[in-house]
């Protein structure tokens, strides 16, 4: 019984951290699907979100609920701005040029944060104050419940948006064939802008949840969850929205199980070797698209 409870507790842990990976992975996968680029600065939007929340709550004393909204808005605008300034001029450039630019943007964001907030970690207590509940012998923390609930709402909302709205359909069309989408009257540039806004807003949500868990701000805090979420996106099948969700959750669970039952030090290595294994077995990822072409 104790073993079972232990596993259940680790499963919840895994789902909590996996939710955060999933939220970030959605941004990677959507931007990849629409703009065909890996936005390596995406992880740093989490950091921007965490610092923005800190500024609003601790320095400007804005009500936490409003601060959350402002943080999401700030990151969305940030994503749009980065796309306009750094990526849009490279729309027809080589992929390598875009990739290097994205890495440059990532360093720029980290160093801006370093310049403004310095390298010393800033303690920042969680704004989520929900009491924990106990079911049987398992205690579920308020943070876990909020994280899972928020992620569930975001996933359902995003799925409905993409599959059942005109805007969502135009995103799917652009991700499949930009030229054909243009012939339908779809403004591809605008669609890309909206995708960056949504991806960055989701990264902000992830950043808020992440910082509520770690309670300490560092300019490089987005790097590790960012790279793991990228792994999650590839694991699930880059370009696939449900793939990113599943990839994130699976990764979180593997990570927390490895930490609990194998080795804390090896957990990250195990996570990354999972990627290698999956890509060897199924190069397009768990839900990767098989392109179907018929004559």
């Amino acid at each position: 019984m104790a073993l079972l409870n232990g596993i259940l507790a680790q499963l919840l842990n895994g789902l909590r951290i996996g939710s955060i990976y999933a939220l970030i992975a959605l941004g990677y996968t959507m931007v990849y699907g629409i703009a065909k680029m890996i936005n390596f600065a995406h992880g740093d939007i989490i950091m921007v979100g965490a610092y923005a929340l800190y500024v609003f709550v601790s320095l400007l004393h804005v009500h936490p609920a409003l601060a959350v909204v402002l943080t999401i808005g700030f990151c969305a605008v940030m994503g749009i701005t980065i796309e306009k300034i750094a990526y849009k001029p490279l729309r027809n450039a080589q992929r390598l040029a875009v990739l290097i630019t994205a890495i440059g943007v990532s360093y720029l964001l980290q160093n801006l944060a370093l310049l403004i907030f310095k390298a010393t970690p800033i303690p920042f207590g969680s704004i989520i104050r929900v009491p924990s509940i106990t079911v049987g012998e398992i205690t579920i923390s308020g943070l876990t419940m909020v994280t899972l609930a928020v992620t569930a709402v975001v996933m359902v909302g995003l799925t409905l948006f993409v599959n059942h709205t005109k805007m969502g359909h135009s995103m799917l069309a652009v991700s499949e064939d930009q030229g054909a989408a243009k012939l339908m009257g779809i403004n591809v540039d605008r669609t890309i802008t909206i995708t960056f806004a949504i991806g960055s807003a989701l990264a902000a949500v992830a950043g808020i949840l992440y910082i509520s868990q770690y309670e300490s701000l560092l300019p490089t805090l987005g790097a590790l969850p960012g790279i793991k979420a990228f792994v999650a996106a590839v694991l699930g099948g880059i370009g696939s929205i449900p793939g990113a969700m599943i990839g994130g959750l699976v990764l979180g669970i593997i990570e927390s199980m490895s930490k609990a039952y194998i080795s804390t030090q090896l957990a990250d290595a195990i996570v990354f070797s999972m990627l290698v294994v999956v890509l060897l077995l199924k190069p397009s990822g768990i839900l990767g698209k098989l392109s179907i072409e018929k004559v």
Partner: protein
Amino acid sequence: MAMLEVNDLKVYYGVIQAIKGVSFQVNEGEVIALIGANGAGKTTILHTITGLLSPHSGSVVFEGTDITKVPAHKIVSLGMAHVPEGRRVFAQLSVLQNLMLGAFTRTDKNEIQESLEEVYKRFPRLAERKNQIAGTLSGGEQQMLAMGRALMSKPRIILMDEPSMGLSPILVNEIFDIIQSVSAGGTTVLLVEQNAKKALSIADRAYVLETGKIVLEGEASVLMNDDSIKKAYLGE
């Protein structure tokens, strides 16, 4: 004044000139065929007309408006639809979703519904398969979907790029019957084909393209009996 005028169009891919000064006109109500061998530049011309490519020089005038610099996504709402080479349906979306994307720029829900009924009437097979994922349709069905999708924008002119490519003779006949009936319904047609025989059989006039230049033009019925055409394109 012609409905669509292409004036001295020159188009490059990098340093390679694909179109070397092409001019032609399409009048309202006509079916115009643009024929030529593989690589002659037919697709390039259509892509330049609808803004997917920018010309080096020359102009495209549609209903009196210069559209040379109009971006591709603003063309369809002007009344021009383009059925691209290779169908290019959205493979992961359903037939219905593809058709609705054809009406992307339209707003009146009732009118869109009317157009949908019309398309279903013209292509009963699309109606039967409206919830099927487009990527799983046969080639002929995908061609019908691409045409139906274009018709969903209620175009005054429709540009079709090799609609018969890769289809069985029976399906080719079916597709050409549909093109004729679209034309009879009042839509002007610019038809690009390698299948010169079929294209000439339904066209009013035709232009013959060779390596980026128009080498011959005239009434379709006259071209069909032209000796050089017979030899080069009709396999006689």
